[in-house]
């Protein structure tokens, strides 16, 4: 069938075009530094080498930057899980004066991302004496309007009778959350966690302006530093090695858990 062949050809062409940047940056990272790509020789150099990775690992304390990224991402997620659960429950199941107005205020956060308000937020962090600390990185992300919306919607779908039954047995609010709502909302929490982790792992502008030393800087900022110092261009093989180090975790996770990622991100339009 002609139509089928046509669409298959299109798939192959676009997949090749889209994959090429990743493919060639991986190749480049394993090429000897002294052998830049040239006409007739764009794939491999004379040998496959790890020297670029070795060099890059000595240029910057990547272990430390990895740790900083993990602290940032995990520190944000853990606090978010608490804040979005509590607020999500209140907005889903409780009646109180001013509820809709307060929800609207929370939604403002989706409309105006903290990183856009660079100047005043920078000033706030300085006033709190937190400049160049892990706290400064995490603090603006601890509340998540996207998370509140997602959890509110999920909790609303859980039959109220389950809560009532638990209440009759004398369960407190926190017991109801722990034994009724949270166990029934695991997929929603997983989606939220994936989106939260990916977006903070990749965050750049805020960490860039709020950190100054290697002790705090996450991977993205370290990669930028590597880029700025290798601008002469001769060290693209090292730059690619550094880039691969930074992007590898998420790309590998995505390759392994495609479906989960796709479903999670499809619900993230209001991040």
């Amino acid at each position: 069938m002609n139509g089928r062949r046509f669409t298959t050809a299109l798939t192959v062409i676009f997949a090749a075009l889209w994959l090429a940047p990743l493919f060639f940056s991986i190749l480049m990272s394993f090429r000897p530094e002294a052998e830049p790509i040239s006409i007739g020789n764009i794939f491999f150099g004379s040998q496959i080498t790890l020297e670029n990775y070795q060099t890059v690992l000595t240029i910057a304390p990547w272990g430390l930057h990895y740790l900083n990224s993990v602290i940032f991402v995990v520190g944000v997620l853990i606090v978010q899980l608490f804040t979005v659960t509590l607020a999500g429950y209140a907005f889903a199941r409780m009646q109180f004066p001013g509820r809709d107005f307060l929800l609207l205020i929370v939604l403002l956060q989706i409309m105006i991302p903290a990183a856009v308000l660079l100047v005043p937020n920078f000033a706030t962090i300085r006033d709190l004496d937190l400049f160049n600390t892990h706290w400064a990185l995490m603090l603006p992300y601890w509340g998540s309007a996207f998370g509140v919306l997602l959890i509110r919607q999920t909790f609303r779908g859980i039959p109220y009778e389950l809560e009532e039954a638990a209440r009759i047995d004398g369960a407190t609010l926190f017991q109801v959350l722990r034994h009724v709502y949270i166990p029934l909302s695991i997929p929603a929490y997983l989606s939220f966690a994936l989106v939260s982790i990916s977006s903070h792992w990749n965050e750049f502008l805020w960490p860039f302006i709020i950190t100054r030393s290697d002790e705090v800087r996450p991977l993205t900022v370290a990669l930028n530093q590597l880029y700025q110092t290798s601008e002469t261009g001769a060290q693209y093989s090292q730059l690619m090695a550094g880039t691969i180090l930074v992007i590898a975790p998420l790309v590998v996770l995505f390759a392994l858990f495609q479906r989960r990622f796709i479903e999670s991100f499809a619900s993230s339009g209001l991040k």
Partner: protein
Amino acid sequence: MLSHRLWTRLTPYLLIAPTLLLVLVFTLLPATRTLYDSLYQPARRAIEPSVFIGLQNYADLFDLTHYLGGRFLPILQNTVIFVFVSLVVAVPLALGFALLLNRQIRALGFWRFSLIYPMLLPLIGAASIWAFLYSDSIGLINTVIRSLGGQGQNWLGNPNLVLGSVIVVNIWKQAGYYSLFYLAGLQNISRDIYEAADLDGANAGQKLLWITVPLLRRTTLFIVVIAITFGFQTVEQLAALGLGNPADRSNLLLWFIFQNISERRNWGYVNAMTVILVSILLLFTVANFLIFERRGVEDERA
């Protein structure tokens, strides 16, 4: 001790307090302060009072003869071009990707990975990959062009090409992300409609044009709005793709704001530009929210 009733009444407020406090401190108050400060001329030194000047900061920004205004308007224009060209190319491409991936094909996982993975790269990582591809002397693109007998280009150094080069990176990164929404939308179109069209003898092109595209209209609208709001906030790639150079030709609004925050005399303009950026974002996100809520209402009815 608080009475039990008062405690019950306070509970919802206590539950939302952490979220609300964070939104107040990092969104609402700073936004208000920015709006307020945008009406003042910053003092030369911290101890002096700043002077109320009304809308003068805004007037200066829109004055081409002003030292910052002369840069602001072209940069605003770049930003609008960046957002809309990305959109016009990436959204149809996303629909195409979704259609390609929505078939029964062998090795689906591989094709899906290939088209979608760029969305998971940090922009700064994506940009450094492309900086290598674009490199004039040893970049992959020029090497390929030259081996085919063509003329290599200075993709990031030529003022007429640089914005296009930055847009290509954005399209490459975002198309797969947008296709996720189309993939979800395609699941909701009933097979019966296509079968009915088959009976009427419709070909593939007609089915795409008269069934798929109209039924995905709402998804398209939704994607367009998020593409616009994301577009106006996307600046990280500039850190690796020439810092807005040459001659501001690839500079974008948020990056320009960032470039000016270190100079006190420009703070009034920084605030005014932030207000302009936030207004644009608000406009489109309110639109997004209205579409989203309306879709929610229809889902409930269905």
